């Protein structure tokens, strides 16, 4: 594992002081505490994405009929289980989005699922 100094802006000063004090009491360096916290965050992140993935897809499946009937050809964005934007273009939609770990973006009625042949080579991984 490489060690490097990293300067981080925007850290809450009170939180930092408390972390520094508690780390000192436990004989840990700030670097060790922050690395541990960052690793925890990385582990948690996919879970949030997966939860929002399910939320968004259930919301779409519930609203699909209504979206097709009322908004065919328009762009729709779904975040955290809710439609957050309906727009006439992707550019217009882009300006109205929030922050999310997972988001559905589609043009209503444009894409239909089908079976696609992947080709003989697409799953093949030969040894070098």
């Amino acid at each position, binding site marked *: 594992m490489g060690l490097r100094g990293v300067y981080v802006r925007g850290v809450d000063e009170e939180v930092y002081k408390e972390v520094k004090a508690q780390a000192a009491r436990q004989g840990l360096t700030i670097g060790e505490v922050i690395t541990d916290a960052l690793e925890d965050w990385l582990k948690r992140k996919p879970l949030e994405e997966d939860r929002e993935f399910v939320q968004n897809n259930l919301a779409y499946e519930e609203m699909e009929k209504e979206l097709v009937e009322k908004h065919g050809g328009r762009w729709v964005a779904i975040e955290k289980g809710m439609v957050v934007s309906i727009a006439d273009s992707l550019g217009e939609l882009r300006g109205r989005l929030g922050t999310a770990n997972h988001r559905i973006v589609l043009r209503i009625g444009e894409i239909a699922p089908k079976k696609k042949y992947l080709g*003989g080579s697409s799953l093949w991984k030969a040894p070098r």
Partner: protein
Amino acid sequence: MEGTTLKWPYVDEEYNFMAPAIKVSLTNPITRAHISFEGFLDTGFDGIILIPWDTYLELGLRKCELPRKLWSMGVSVTGEVPLRAAHVELEMNGMKKRVVAETFRGNLRKLIGGGYIEEHITTLNGPCKLLEIKSITK
């Protein structure tokens, strides 16, 4: 019918043979995250572009994904796999087009499929190891 002819030399596909490949750039239409690579021409893939799972994550395409109900099913000799899909902007030699990029967990391949080249006249010049694409302006 007018158009320009683009030529790319075959590329070593890492499997000890030279294969036709096209240099493309993909851009996430929401975040503008961007990546360029050489995708191998595979007429056996009937989608437009298949990208590695890691590229899909790197471009942040989970944040502009199509609903799972609209994902296509990839069919191969080993079975079927759902293809996660997201809109991207695909650029080839200055020509931009909004397309759907697809992947599946664990995929390592970068393929340009029949869905993309059906809009062009494509020639594989085997003796010269050259891929030629004539883009059509109707």
